[in-house]
C-alpha cells in the first residue's frame, strides 16, 4: 500500500502548520498500519477537536470527528456495538488530558479494546496557544503570561496507573520507535496508548522563545531520556519537564483481560 492509498491525496497538502509534528505522526502511523496488516475498510478512526483531531479527515476510511474531549467515549460505543471493527482514536493533550481526562482514565481502567494515539504538544494548538494539562512548569502560553505555575500530567504514567495494556511514549524525533510502538499498539488486545511528544512551532514555540520548528524539535530531542536511565533519576527529575526531561520508551506491556472479553461480548 502506498502512502496515498491510505491518505486522501485529493485533500493534500494537509492543513498543519510548517514543521508541525502531526505530519510526522501521520507518516509513522501509515507504516505502522500497513505493517499491522489491518483492513482499512474494517477500521474506524475517531478524533476529538483540536489540530490532532483533524488526522482522521485525511484517512481513506470511515471516520468520526466528534466533540472536544469525547473521542474515547464515542469510540467505546463503536467498538462494543461492532467488535469486528478496529477502532483507533487520535487525540491532543487538551482533548485527552483536560476535557476528556475522565474518559481516558476510565477507558484505561476498563481496558477497552481501543488504540489511542495522543499527540502531546504541551499546549492548545488549534485555539491559539493556551496552557494545557501537560504544559511544563514555568513554560509560557497565552494564558500563562507569567509562566505556568501548575504541575503537569504525565499522560503515559496515568495510563499505566489506570490499567492500560500497552503504553509507550516517544517524541517526533524517534520516528522508527514511534512506528514500532504504534504497530504493537494496533495489534494489542485491550487498551493501548501511544503518546507522542510533538512540536507545535506555531504556538508552543512562539510562546517559549523557540522561534523555529527546528528549535522545538531539537528541544524535544534533547529532553528525551530513555526510561531505563530515567528511573535512576530522582522522582523530582522525572516530574515531566520539571527538569526539562521527557522519559521515552515502553511504559507497560501486559495482558489484563480486555473489556469485551470480560463482558462476555467477545470470546
Amino acid at each position: 500500500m502506498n502512502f496515498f492509498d491510505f491518505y486522501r491525496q485529493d485533500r493534500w497538502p494537509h492543513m498543519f502548520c510548517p514543521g508541525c509534528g502531526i505530519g510526522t505522526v501521520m507518516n509513522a502511523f501509515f507504516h505502522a498500519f500497513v505493517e499491522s496488516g489491518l483492513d482499512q475498510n474494517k477500521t474506524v478512526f475517531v478524533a476529538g477537536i483540536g489540530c490532532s483531531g483533524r488526522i482522521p479527515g485525511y484517512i481513506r476510511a470511515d471516520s468520526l470527528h466528534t466533540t472536544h474531549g469525547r473521542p474515547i467515549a464515542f469510540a467505546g460505543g463503536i467498538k462494543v456495538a461492532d467488535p469486528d471493527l478496529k477502532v483507533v482514536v487520535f487525540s491532543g493533550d487538551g482533548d485527552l488530558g483536560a476535557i476528556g481526562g475522565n474518559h481516558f482514565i476510565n477507558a484505561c481502567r476498563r481496558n477497552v479494546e481501543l488504540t489511542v494515539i495522543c499527540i502531546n504538544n504541551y499546549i492548545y494548538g488549534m485555539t491559539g496557544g493556551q496552557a494545557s494539562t501537560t504544559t511544563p512548569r514555568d513554560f509560557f502560553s497565552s494564558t500563562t503570561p507569567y509562566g505556568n505555575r501548575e504541575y503537569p500530567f504525565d499522560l503515559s504514567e496515568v495510563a499505566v496507573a489506570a490499567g492500560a495494556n500497552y503504553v509507550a511514549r516517544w517524541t517526533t524525533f524517534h520516528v522508527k520507535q514511534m512506528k514500532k510502538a504504534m504497530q504493537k499498539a494496533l495489534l494489542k488486545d485491550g487498551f493501548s496508548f501511544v503518546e507522542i511528544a510533538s512540536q507545535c512551532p506555531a504556538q508552543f514555540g512562539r510562546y517559549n522563545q523557540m522561534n523555529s520548528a527546528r528549535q522545538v524539535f531539537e528541544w524535544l530531542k534533547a529532553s528525551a531520556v530513555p526510561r531505563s536511565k530515567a528511573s535512576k533519576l530522582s522522582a523530582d527529575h522525572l516530574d515531566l519537564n520539571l527538569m526539562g526531561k521527557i522519559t521515552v520508551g515502553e511504559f507497560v506491556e501486559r495482558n489484563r483481560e480486555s473489556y469485551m472479553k470480560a463482558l462476555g461480548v467477545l470470546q
Partner: protein
Amino acid sequence: MSKLEPGTYFMQGDEASVEGAIHAGCKFFAGYPITPATEIAERMARRLRQAGGVFLQLEDEITAIAAIIGASWTGTKAMTATSGPGFSLMQENLGYACMTETPIVIVDVQRSGPSTGQPTRAAQGDVMQARWGSHGDYEVIALAPNSVQEMFDLTITAFNLSERYRVPAIVLSDADIGHMRGTFVIPEKVEIVDRKYHTKPVSYNAFAYDENLVPNFPKFGQGHRVHITGLTHDISGYPKTTDAKVHEALVTRLVNKIRLHREDICRAEVINPHADSLVVAYGSPSNSVYEVVNERADVGLFRPITLWPFPEEQLRECAAHARRILVLEMNMGQIYWEVERIARKSPCEKIELLTRLGGDVHTPEEILEKLA
C-alpha cells in the same frame, strides 16, 4: 427470551419503556444511574443480554450519549435514559447527533430542578431544554407519555421516528409515569421502522439527499470510507466551515426535514374538540383531565403526545372553537408559550396557565375550580 410475547403485562413505566425499546430492536444501552430513571438501566442490564444486546454503565452521561451515537454508526439501534441533571450533561452531544444525523433515543424521566432539585418528585421542567438545550439551530422529536402503556408504545415510536428521520428522539416522561405501576398490552403486530442504508459505497456523497431531505445512512465498516463531523459540512461530509451558503443549506435541511414531515410525526389526543373550555395537558397532569371531561361536556382535552415538533395545526383547530384555554404544567410555563403563540389569533378570550411545582399533580377539583 428476547422480546416479550404479545399479551398483557403488569410493570412499572420505566420497565415498560425497556420492553418497548427491545421490541423496537434496541441492541445497545449506555447509561449512568440517576433517580427516577435508574430502573430503566437496571432492567436493561438484565434484559439486553437476553435480547442479544449490550448494556454499559459508563462514567457519566456525556459518555453515555457519546457511546450510543458511536454504536448507532455501526447500524445498531441504541438508547440511553436519564433525568434532568444527566440530560443537561448530554446537551452538547445531542447537538452532535443532530448535526451528524445520527438516530438515537433518549428517555428523560423528568424530576424537579433546577440543579439536583427533588430527585424523586415529578416535574416537566425539561420541555424547553429538550427543544433548545444544545447550541445552534436544530429540530428534535420529543414525545410525552402519560401511562405505562405509552411508556411502551412511545419508546417504540421514538425509535421508529428516530430511524426514519435520522434525528435524536426523546421520550419526555416524568417521575410519576416512570414509577407508575400498571398493565400494558403488547399487540400481535407492532410496526417497526429501520433506517434506510446506503447499499453502494458512497465515499464523497455520504449526505446526498432527495426531496425527502433525509440522506441514506452509510454505516461504518462497509467500505464507504465516509467522514462524519460535527463541523459544518457539505454533502461529501467534509468540513466546509467558512462558506455561509453551505452552512445555511445544511442547517435549513436539518430543520426542514422535521418540519416537512410534521403530519407524520405529530400526535395528539383530543377529547371534545369543540368544547367551550379547552384544557391543554401532557404527561402526568393530563391524567387528571380525563375525569373532568367525563363530567363536563363543555370541557375538552388537548393532549400533545408529540411535544416537539408541537402539533400546531391540531391545536389551532380546537382553539378555533374554544372560549378559553387552560394549560396545565408541572413547571412555570413552557408549553404554555407554544399554546399562547398558536391560539393567540383565535377568538379565544383567555389563555391561562395552572402551574404545579414540587411534584404534586393538579387534581380534578382544582381544574374544575379554575374553570368555574
